[in-house]
């Protein structure tokens, strides 16, 4: 999976599962402040990516995640490992 593919999938999840306004999704958008995701949503998002890539994602790796591009980085790390 490339970074672009991850970005597209993330956008899809955010819009369809978390009802985020698509226009708000930029690389620097903060998940909590700008996109109104709470901590349970973050867990939910990880689970969705886990199902997609078929690999386990550690919750600790996601602790430092704040922005949309952070998510893409972390998922890409797991995928390319």
């Amino acid at each position: 999976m490339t970074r672009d593919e991850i970005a597209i999938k993330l956008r899809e999840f955010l819009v369809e599962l978390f009802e985020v306004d698509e226009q708000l999704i930029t690389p620097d958008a903060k998940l909590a402040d700008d996109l109104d995701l709470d901590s349970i949503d973050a867990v939910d998002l990880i689970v969705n990516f886990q199902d997609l890539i078929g690999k386990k994602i550690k919750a600790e790796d996601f602790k430092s995640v704040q922005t949309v591009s952070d998510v893409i980085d972390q998922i890409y790390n797991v995928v390319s490992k």
Partner: protein
Amino acid sequence: MLRKLDWFWRLLVTGFAFSLFGLGGLFMTIFYFPILKIIIRDKDRKANVVQATIHRSFGYYLSIIEFIGVCDITVENKEYLKGVKGTVIIANHPSLLDTVILMGQMNRAQCIVKHELWNNFFLGGVMRAANYIRNDEDPEKLIRDCVNVLERGDNLIVFPEGTRTPPGSVLGKLQRGVANIIVSSTAPILPVTIHCNHRTLAKGEPWYRIPPTRLAFTIRFSKQCESVDLVTEKTEHHSLNTRRMTAAIKHLLETNILGEEVVQRN
């Protein structure tokens, strides 16, 4: 002159009311809970006794502060509380006294408390003994703990705004925690609206800035209802279900609050 006297008296008794609350908590921490710990070994039974004690002490406390003239408290539809258990009590949060007032009305009620209070010199001991749910827990554990409380048959008081209502607004932005709890359990809900005539117990107001007239609270309980009735369309996604549920709760609370104001104006 009389007005000034009234103001001074209320300042005095308000100070007394704040001190009484803190000292009461401290007294329980130092004397009552340690003794209870020795007498009752069984953890669940102890929790029940502690809850009953808090319920009764808050009841007495409210009677005292009403008697000395700090505030008036009107409770409407209290009969709706009869036999209610394992229910999520959902309320707006205009003042510092809301939790005390609600706990004074119902026994076996748990609530989620901000973690700072665990280290509070006066109230920390009460928080620990009552086994309230800390708000800084791991979010999944927090939801699980809340569901367990409900399944045990205790009621859970939740202020979905997560903090006190900003002065001047009907209802602050709702957190989705309460929807998470409801969606994750089969617990019914019981909405409550709290109305307070002044803002002096809102967040950030010091105790000595007392209102121009006596505080008056109106607490109105609504009928218990099943949460599944609130949201007609259920999806397979938890994230969407909690969003729908949050919107439904917001609508329900706002309707109740505004309905109340319309009634009070007439």
